[in-house]
């Protein structure tokens, strides 16, 4: 049986619209479940402690990026598999695991592989996958390009990097290497178990997406001329100056069987 932790606010209260469909799919896949509603994401650790049974197969996060992050952070250090039922269209981790859409995500609970994902830490916050650091103007410009109805009508809403000058940043890698550069965007990705280093940093120093720098380290400290948000999925978890670490800790995620993915191994 799975413990489903449901964020009722996620995806504009999407759960209530699809609840019947979800139960039908779960029954069809013979997946046993127990629904528990999350009243506040800060209470997720307590909710898990109160509701999780030793016989449960795992915990399923039903919600968006924030819900998934909250569940993962609550289960660090416990060998409990985590499943995801995405409620929003921008659930990046679910997308990267091949959990696109409700039927696929539910089928994965019945017929699954367990994938070991490396954990990273930003301050006191754990994460999996990747984190992004960008100047506010770059994020705002990208958001406006995506959502402006006139741009969409004219077919100009493609996502492109803006032409604004980036912010000067200093990035320390493992206390061994110092990087100085104008920074439009930084992508910090957790490397898999067999990587030489735990983190891969991709630095976009100019609007040209082909002009990148790639470096590897176990920890990254970023400081910019201006404060830059650190984003996981679409949730801002911190601002610069910030230290991001790759850990020798893992969490097991429930993925569709035979899912060919990078940066991890299946258990």
């Amino acid at each position, binding site marked *: 049986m799975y413990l489903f932790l449901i964020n009722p606010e996620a995806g504009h209260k999407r759960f209530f619209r699809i609840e019947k469909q979800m139960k039908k799919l779960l029954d069809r896949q013979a997946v046993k479940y127990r629904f528990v509603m999350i009243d506040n994401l800060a209470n997720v650790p307590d909710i898990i402690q109160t509701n999780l049974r030793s016989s449960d197969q795992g915990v399923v996060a039903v919600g968006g990026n924030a819900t998934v992050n909250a569940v993962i952070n609550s289960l660090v250090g416990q060998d409990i598999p985590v499943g995801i039922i995405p409620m929003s269209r921008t659930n990046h981790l679910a997308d990267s695991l091949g959990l696109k859409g409700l039927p696929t995500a539910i089928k994965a609970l019945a017929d699954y592989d367990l994938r070991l994902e490396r954990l990273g830490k930003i301050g006191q916050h754990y994460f999996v996958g990747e984190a992004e650091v960008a100047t506010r103007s770059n994020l705002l410009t990208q958001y406006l390009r995506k959502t402006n109805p006139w741009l969409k009508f004219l077919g100009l809403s493609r996502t492109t990097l803006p032409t604004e000058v980036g912010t000067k940043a200093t990035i320390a*890698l493992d206390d*061994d*290497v*110092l*990087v*100085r*550069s*104008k920074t439009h965007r930084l992508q910090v990705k957790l490397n898999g178990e067999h990587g*030489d280093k735990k983190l891969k940093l991709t*630095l976009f*120093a*100019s609007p040209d997406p082909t*002009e*990148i*720098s*790639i*470096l*590897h380290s176990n920890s990254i400290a970023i400081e910019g001329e201006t404060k830059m948000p650190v984003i996981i999925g679409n949730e801002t978890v911190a601002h610069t100056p910030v230290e991001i670490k790759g850990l020798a800790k893992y969490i097991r995620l429930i993925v569709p069987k035979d899912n060919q993915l990078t940066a991890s191994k299946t258990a």
Partner: protein
Amino acid sequence: MNKTRADFADFTNPDTIIGDEVSVEGTLKTGGDIQINGQFKGKLITDGDVVVGERATVTADINGQNVYVAGEVVGNVNAIGKLEILETGCLKGNVSSSALVIEAGGVLKGSSTMHDTEREKPEITPTYEVETGTKVEEGVN
């Protein structure tokens, strides 16, 4: 794998890249290929190949498998395989490698040492047999 110049021009998928407008300082240790198009100062150690691009400025000792210099390097270079200084390259420092190629226009200011490599040596017939002490004809096979 030894790269030809054409391979260097399309040096794809390096493990580490230092971009055009980026300055890096420190000791960079990695297992894969490194491409430098910006500035690097310090020490560079890799099991893979190193490419110093045309607009790059490197002030560092470099240790790698094959090293290709199309920009400016100030420092000593130790290439286990080949060191190639291309026509736009300028290297000021001492170098050691198994093979050294300097294209027309390329500059090396420093000393060069070649790594010992296996070479075919001619067999020489001994002039005396040990048992009888009989002198035999000298000859080279």
